[in-house]
């Protein structure tokens, strides 16, 4: 882990970030504010994803599956079952994802490393095919509509969708991010979290020391699924539609990309990565039609030159500044 500044400095830094995010809607252009919503969604999703990857050492190439489950749960809840409460949607989507994660995790945690990645990729694509095939249920390629949720029971009907998104919904998501972030911080720094680290560092040794490796991997997997689904719910509400492409394996690849961009070895890395990626992608898409090439080149650059990601670069600079 990179050297962390003192706890009080950390708290101050986080408080500053939250404050900046809180005033952003009043300062920034509306388009960029709408971009922050997917950044929130991915930040939450990646908090969970990195529990599995950064902390436990398991690289999944199929976690878009749970993002999609979150999106589709939201769609079914709002447009087919009339459940509009955002709080209920978040909870139910998370639970559905955890339930779906049980069989996937049971099969996958028997494996490690590369095989785990391949397997999770296959499961993600299985869900993608399922979404296409059972079109009566899932809407096929067109997906399912997602209606506007109510926040704490309030519908904000007087606001149009954009105003709702960059207004009350923005703050609801920010709050959710803070809460889920705090929860994840506790998880990572709990005995459970430390044991996950031990499993990552040396599974056999951890086994010897009495850590129940498979069980803990399994649990980490379930938690990660919950977080990804919450992210998916936010994405779906932002888009207004849940569609199968959310489950495609390249979307899973983007999750990994964001995590590594921010720095998977740091708690805040994935959060930074989510924001950085969303803005990078948007600017690249606007600048050139060959944005995939430059996005890939960026990833290659990070992997080869800056493996600890943006947080790694930041902590290096911080250390240099402290020494100076």
């Amino acid at each position: 882990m990179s050297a962390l500044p003192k706890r009080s400095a950390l708290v101050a830094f986080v408080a500053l970030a939250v404050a900046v995010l809180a005033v952003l809607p009043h300062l920034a252009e509306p388009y960029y504010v709408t971009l922050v919503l997917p950044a929130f969604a991915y930040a939450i999703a990646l908090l969970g994803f990195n529990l599995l990857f950064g902390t436990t050492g398991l690289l999944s190439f199929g976690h878009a599956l749970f993002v999609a489950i979150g999106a589709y749960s939201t769609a079914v809840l709002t447009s087919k079952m009339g459940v509009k409460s955002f709080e209920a949607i978040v909870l139910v989507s998370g639970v559905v994802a955890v339930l779906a994660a049980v069989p996937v995790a049971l099969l996958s945690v028997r494996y490690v490393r590369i095989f785990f990645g391949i397997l999770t990729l296959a499961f993600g694509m299985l869900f993608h095919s399922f979404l296409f095939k059972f079109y009566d249920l899932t809407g096929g390629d067109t997906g399912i509509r997602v209606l506007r949720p109510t926040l704490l029971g309030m519908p904000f009907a007087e606001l149009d969708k954009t105003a709702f998104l960059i207004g009350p919904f923005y703050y609801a998501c920010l709050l959710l991010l803070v809460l889920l972030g705090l929860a994840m911080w506790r998880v990572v720094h709990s005995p459970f979290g430390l044991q996950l680290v031990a499993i990552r560092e040396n599974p056999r040794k951890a086994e010897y020391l009495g850590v129940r490796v498979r069980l803990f991997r399994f649990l980490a997997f379930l938690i990660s699924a919950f977080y990804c689904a919450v992210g998916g719910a936010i994405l779906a509400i932002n888009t207004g539609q849940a569609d199968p492409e959310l489950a495609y394996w390249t979307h899973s690849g983007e999750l990994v990309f964001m995590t590594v961009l921010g720095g998977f070895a740091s708690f805040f890395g994935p959060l930074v990565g989510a924001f950085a990626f969303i803005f990078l992608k948007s600017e690249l898409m606007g600048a050139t039609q060959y944005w995939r090439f430059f996005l890939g080149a960026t990833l290659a650059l990070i992997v080869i030159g800056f493996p600890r990601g943006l947080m790694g670069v930041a902590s290096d600079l911080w250390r240099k500044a402290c020494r100076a």
Partner: protein
Amino acid sequence: MTSFFDVLLGGVFHASVLFLVAAGLQLVFGVQRIVNLACGSFYALGAYFGITAVNWSTAHGAPAWSFLPVLVLSGVLLGAIGPVIERLLRTVYKRDEAFQLLLTFALVLMFQDVLRFFWGATPQQLGNLSMSYGKLAIGEVSFPTYNVLVMAASIAIAVSLGLFLQRTRYGRILRATAENREMAEALGADVRGIYASVFTLGTVLGTVGGALVVPTAAASLDMPVELVVEAFAVVVIGGLGSMRGAVAGALVVGLTRALAISFYAELEVLAIYVIVIAVLIARPAGLFGKPVE
């Protein structure tokens, strides 16, 4: 009965092409422990470049029947990018496998635009060249000769690879490096050179696969990301790192798909996933894989 044969042959043809790509994956994984997500990109590159090569050679007077050797040759020539990409991957060998996987994902993204930059968005094809060799008819079953040649080529390559790995000295060194890299290095094997050759060979298998399939199909921009899924299913079923697994997995996937299409068309893609899961539950390491921890 004839229709059953048609179906079977169709499945085996699909399996032949899948085998080539899977063999490339298995070889590279077996020796270097890298899973190449860009295998589909190489396949697509082989397809597009093959078309360009055939069009070029036809424009320069080559006879119609020469397109098969031209395709194979163009696939082999593309192997030149193998060492280049391997050099790139070499920068992350010492790191966690996750980085290697990610670097190949970066390649997938980059290749998508490279393909579009050179060949554009319109699908490319080779017209009806695959019919130049006519049809083979046994009784009522008729099958384009080209498809049979591809299947034969695939079998030939499988056999050669097998012989190469089992019987030749270099093959044995490769297998030793796959088993235990440090030991092989200590015993004098030029691991760097081996990695470069293995990756190049894996690349060539992919590009040749793409080149061989293009006369009966087309080259399209979504090939790179679509193929990865099937290739991975083959590898999971067959067992990661095993050549025999590549053959077995390819046959299973190809035939399952063909049978599903004939008897219960809706199942097509899902049938393969069902088999993947069934194999994993029954034999976690795949049909021929080594047991994992």
